[in-house]
C-alpha cells in the first residue's frame, strides 16, 4: 500500500473539501437574489371589491403556505383574514383583508428578545423559525393581530414556507416569489383576487404601478396614528 506523504494528504483533503462544499455554495448563490435596500415592497388593497367576495385571497394564501384548519377556530392560524367594519352611527359597513402590515417600525421586531422577528432591508417583516423561542411577546405587541402561534403538530408543509409547532408565524408577503421574480412577482393573494383589488409593488419606485396609483388616488393605513408606517395600504376605508 502506498504511503501518503504530507503534501499529497493536504492536496487531496483540500480537493475533497472543495468538491463537497462548492456545489452547495454555488446553488445558494444562484437561488438567493436577496433583499435590496433600494426596494420597499408593499401592497395596495382596494376594499371596495371586498364586501361580496368569496375570500379567494384567504384561500390562496393558506393554500400557498399550507396553513390548514384543525377545526379549532380559537387556535387555528389565519395569516390573512377578512374583517368587517361597521360604523355604529351610520350603519355603513365595509370589509377588508388584514394580514401582517410589514411596518417600517414594527413593534414585533422591537420586542422580540432573540431577534427572531426581523425586518429585511426591503421592508418585509419575517420570523426566523430557527431562533423563535415561542414567547409570544410579538403577538402581544402587534396592533394588527397579524401574528399566529402554531398550537398544533404540523404535517404536509410546503417547502417554500416552513412552519413549526411552538413558534410564531405571519404573512411573508410571499417572499419566496419576490426573491425569485422581484418587481414582477405577484403575491398569492393578489393572484387569486378575481377583482384585481390587490396590487403588489415597490413603494420606493416612483414608476411602479403601486406608486402611480397611490399618487393618483391616495390611500390610508390602518392605525396610522401609531406611526408605524405599514407597507400595506388601503383604498375605500371611508367609514
Amino acid at each position, binding site marked *: 500500500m502506498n504511503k501518503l506523504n504530507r503534501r499529497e494528504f493536504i492536496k487531496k483533503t483540500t480537493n475533497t473539501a472543495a468538491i463537497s462544499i462548492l456545489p452547495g455554495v454555488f446553488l445558494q448563490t444562484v437561488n438567493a437574489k436577496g433583499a435590496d435596500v433600494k426596494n420597499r415592497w408593499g401592497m395596495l388593497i382596494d376594499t371596495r371589491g371586498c364586501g361580496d367576495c368569496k375570500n379567494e385571497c384567504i384561500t390562496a394564501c393558506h393554500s400557498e403556505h399550507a396553513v390548514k384548519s384543525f377545526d379549532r377556530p*380559537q387556535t387555528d392560524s389565519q395569516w390573512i*383574514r377578512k*374583517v368587517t367594519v361597521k360604523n355604529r352611527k351610520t350603519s355603513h359597513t365595509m370589509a377588508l383583508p*388584514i394580514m401582517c402590515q410589514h411596518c417600517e417600525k414594527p413593534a414585533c421586531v*422591537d420586542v422580540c428578545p432573540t*431577534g427572531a422577528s426581523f425586518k429585511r432591508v426591503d421592508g418585509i417583516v419575517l420570523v426566523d423559525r430557527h431562533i*423563535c423561542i415561542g*414567547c409570544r411577546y410579538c403577538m402581544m405587541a402587534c396592533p394588527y393581530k397579524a401574528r399566529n402561534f402554531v*398550537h398544533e403538530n404540523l404535517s404536509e408543509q410546503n417547502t417554500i414556507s416552513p412552519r413549526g409547532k411552538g413558534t410564531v408565524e405571519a404573512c411573508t408577503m410571499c417572499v419566496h416569489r419576490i426573491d425569485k421574480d422581484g418587481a414582477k412577482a405577484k403575491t398569492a393573494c393578489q393572484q387569486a383576487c378575481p377583482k384585481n383589488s390587490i396590487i403588489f409593488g415597490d413603494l420606493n419606485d416612483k414608476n411602479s404601478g403601486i406608486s402611480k396609483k397611490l399618487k393618483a388616488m391616495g390611500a390610508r393605513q390602518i392605525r396610522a396614528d401609531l406611526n408605524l408606517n405599514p407597507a400595506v395600504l388601503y383604498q375605500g376605508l371611508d367609514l
Partner: protein
Amino acid sequence: MKKQTSFSQFSNNSFFYWSLLVLFGGIILIGLLAVHQMEHHGHHITGMSQQIVWGLPHVFAIFLIVAASGALNISSMSSVFNRTHYKPLSRLSAMLSICLLAGGLAVLVLDLGRPDRLIVAMTHYNFKSIFAWNIILYNGFFAIVFVYIWMMMEQKMNKFSKLAGFFAFLWRLILTTGTGSIFGFLFAREAYDAAIMGPMFVIMSFSFGLAFFMLVMGLLYKLDGRQIGDYVFNKLRKLLGVFIAAVLYFVIVKHLTNLYAAEHTDMEYFMLFGDNIYTQLFWYGQVLLGGLLPLIMLYGPLCKKSRLTGYLAAFLVVLGGLIQIYVIVIGGQAYPLVLFPGMEVTSSFFDGTINSYIPSKYEIALGVSGVAITLLAIVFASRILPVAADNLSDEYVNPHFKKK
C-alpha cells in the same frame, strides 16, 4: 441589652416536614408531566389561544418574579437603610428571593413554545427588547444575590455586604421596573401602554414579596420550633400594611388616568364596571380580598395583636396579588385590540369580541408547580445553609430591648 444573633441550618426531621417535601416534589412532578403534554400535543390543549396568548402560567411566573425582588427588600432594609432589626432576617430574605425567581423563571421557560431553545434565549439578544433586558436582569439577579448572601455569611467578607446589598437593591429596582415595562411598552393594547406599569410593579413587589416572606418565615420557624418575637413580627405587619396601601394608591392613579382619556374609557368601563369575570376579580379579589381586608386585619384594633390574623392577611395579599396579575395579564388580553377606533369590528379571527379564557388543568399544574419549586428550594437551601437566625424573639432583635 439585645443579644447577639446566631444563624444555623434547619434540622427538622418530623414526619410532617418530610411529608411537605414529598408534597412539593409531587406537585413539581405533576407540573413537569403537564409540560410534557403541552409540548407533545402543542398548546391547543391549553386554554390559551391566538387571542389570549399568555395564560395562567404567565400569571404565576410574573407573580413569583415580582415577589422575588420584593422578598429581597427585608434584606435591603438592613443593609441599605440601616434598619438593624431586619438584619437577622436578611439572609433568609435574600435566599427566598433567589428561590422565588427560580420558581417563576421555571414556569416562564416551560411555557415557551420551544423551551428546548432556552440556549437561544441566552445567546441571541435583541437589545431593543425589554424582554431581552429582563433575561439579563434575571441572570444578573441570581449572581448578585448569591454574592450578597456569601458576603453576609462569610465573616471575612462581611465588610462588603453593605455595598453588595446596595448594589442588589438597585438591581432589583431596575429588574422589577423592567418586568412592569414588559406591559408598559405594549402601546398596541389599551390595558397596558402606561409608564406607571414599571413603578406599579415595583410597589406590587414590595407587597407580594413581604407577604410571601412572612408566610415562609412563619412556616419554617414553626416547623423547627424556633421563636419569632412580637417586635419583629409587628414591624413586618406594619410594613405590609404600608405596602398594601401603596399598591392601592397606584391602582387608583392608573385607572383614574385611563378613565380621563377618551381613547381608554371603553376599556376602563370593561375592567371596572363590566359584566365579566375581570370586573368581579378586580373588585372582590384584588381590591377587597387582597387590599382592604388585609389592611383591616393588620391595622384593625381588634385583630392587630393576633399573630394568626397577621399570617392570614399575608396569605390574602398573596392571593390578591395573584388575582391582580390575572386581571392585568388575562383581562388586558380579553379586551380586543382596537383596529378602527369607535367602529364595530367582526371577523372569523375574533376581532372586536371580548376574548374568553378558561385555564386548562395543564396550565394550573404548571403554575402551581412554580410555587412548589420555590418552596422546595427554600426548604432545601435553609437545610444546607445557615440562612435563618436561631432566635427572632425580642431580646435578639429589638435594639432597645430591656429585661423586665
